């Protein structure tokens, strides 16, 4: 752990997603000194990113590019939810609600005040963070199922308010909002989503590898023992709640301005359970799990779309099977396979 270079993510990566020319910039930092200190994992990660940056926009059809964009939205949602639930043990059902806060706040600011969607997304992120702080504060003394139920209640209240306040939100008809680019292009949106997803993932990765990650997991493992070891568990929990709510708000804001039609489906429980299923099936408490789960479930849902309501049944079935045979998700299965040769 300690012997790794401090700068986990080489400079060039930040260029990804800004524009199509980004790929060339990324190759430059890979001089010999970098190769020396990078292990196979990081090189693999870079190659994966490179493929993600080059391949989809130029090879995939508009339809599949759309699926990729939605997948990236879910990557942000599932990874940030995982940071909260998988690392501090606060299984919140309000994550989709916070993405709804981001989407609606940003959308309404654009529609009613004519604010630029970029500023709107920033405001939506901030708004979600403030609400997350408040909800996190409310849930201080709650753990486990009580926290989940409270956040579930919050989520439903928010959805009902949004549905009924139709002079502001247009209710179930949906609020039409402006896009982020003057000229609509799925490729632009794809790079935008890729950029924010990568930035968010880099942030999460750094956080869980830092001291904060250790304290997060200490709180997850045993709150009493953590506080008896000098950890301010309340601060850790509220920080995680606020931070991940902000991430959901950001993802929701981007999502809203991509779809250009915001409906109460965004902060719905259906959406929440989908995000939850992605994180759980991929592997809660691991970094790669939710990323994997998001892509798998989103792509799967495209193939089984024709099943209508039954596709929810399939998700439920997969989640059940996973819960029985691989409670640590796909990543857990993989880790087990790697560990086994040494075990008896």
């Amino acid at each position, binding site marked *: *752990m*300690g012997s790794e270079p401090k700068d986990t993510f080489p400079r060039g990566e930040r260029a990804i997603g800004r524009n199509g020319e980004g790929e060339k910039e990324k190759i430059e930092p890979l001089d010999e000194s970098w190769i020396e200190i990078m292990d196979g994992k990081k090189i693999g990660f870079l190659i994966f990113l490179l493929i993600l940056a080059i391949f989809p926009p130029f090879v995939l059809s508009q339809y599949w590019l759309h699926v990729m964009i939605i997948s990236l939205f879910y990557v942000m949602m599932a990874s940030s939810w995982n940071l909260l639930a998988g690392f501090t043990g606060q299984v919140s059902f309000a994550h989709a609600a916070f993405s709804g806060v981001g989407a609606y706040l940003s959308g309404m600011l654009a529609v009613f005040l004519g604010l630029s969607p970029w500023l709107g997304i920033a405001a939506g992120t901030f708004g979600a963070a403030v609400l997350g702080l408040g909800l996190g504060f409310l849930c201080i003394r709650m753990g486990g199922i009580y926290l989940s139920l409270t956040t579930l209640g919050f989520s439903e209240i928010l959805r009902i308010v949004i549905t009924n306040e139709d002079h502001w939100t247009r209710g179930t008809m949906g609020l039409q909002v402006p896009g982020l680019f003057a000229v609509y292009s799925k490729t632009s949106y794809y790079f935008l989503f890729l950029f924010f997803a990568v930035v968010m993932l880099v942030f999460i990765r750094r956080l869980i590898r*830092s*001291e904060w990650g*250790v*304290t997060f*997991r*200490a709180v*997850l*493992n*045993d709150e*009493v*023992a*953590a*506080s*008896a*070891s*000098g*950890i*301010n*568990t*309340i601060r850790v929990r509220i920080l995680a709640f606020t931070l991940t709510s902000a991430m959901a708000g950001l993802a929701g804001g981007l999502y809203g301005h991509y779809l250009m039609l915001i409906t109460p489906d965004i902060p719905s429980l259906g959406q929440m359970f989908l995000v939850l299923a992605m994180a759980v099936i991929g592997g809660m408490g691991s970094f790669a799990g939710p990323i994997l789960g998001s892509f798998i479930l989103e792509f799967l849902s495209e193939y089984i779309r024709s099943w209508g309501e039954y596709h929810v049944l399939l998700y439920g079935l997969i989640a059940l099977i996973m819960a029985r045979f691989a409670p640590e998700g796909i990543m857990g299965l993989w880790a087990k396979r790697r560990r086994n040769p040494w075990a008896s």
Partner: protein
Amino acid sequence: MGVLIEGKNLSKAFGGLTAVKGVDFHLSAGEIVGLIGPNGAGKTTLFNLITGIFPPDTGTLSFKGQTLLERKPFEICRLGIGRTFQIVRPFLKMTCLENILVGIIGRGEKGRGKGEKHEEAREILKVTGLSAHEPRLAKDLTLIEKKRLEMARALATKPGVILLDEVLAGLNPSEIQQALELIEKIRSQFQITLFWIEHVMGAIMKASDRVIVLDQGRKIKEGKPLEVVSDPRVIEAYLGEENA
């Protein structure tokens, strides 16, 4: 030797059950004080009062002259009171190194790098004889190793006092010997005062400077180990009234 922890007239009731009734006690720097008594005597409750898990109903508590009342468990830990738990509570899904790191991070010191903290954590693993287990998850350890890890984590918070809650329970004789050696090391090498709940009488009689006996929430005796075991009230508390 100055007084480190002082509690006066401490009481705590859970509904109709009074777990601790008007207990006075003190710990002086450098002492090993044993806390004994039959099951349900209120020993662990007293520990939980000191470490701020819950507040006492009456009475005062202080550490080095500062009050412990109204303080949260993590603040009390940072003041310098570490503890272990009767039923071990290491962070099961974290490695041994990470378990120790939590204690080091818990001190809340600023301006020390990751490498330095890792170095210190390894040092503590070495002292407690856990070096070989550094990358292992705590859940894969044996009971004695888990108990060692808990003591190591408490050590990592750099306490002035460690409260040990039945660290010998469930260990076999040779493991008890190892644990006693570690406890002796903690006292002599790190100059840490120990407040120690134990049911293994032989061990606590040998190691303690002073013993406090609780029965049904009250302090019934305090004194040198030999005085205490010969006191009829203590014998009665443990074995029941004579000719009863």
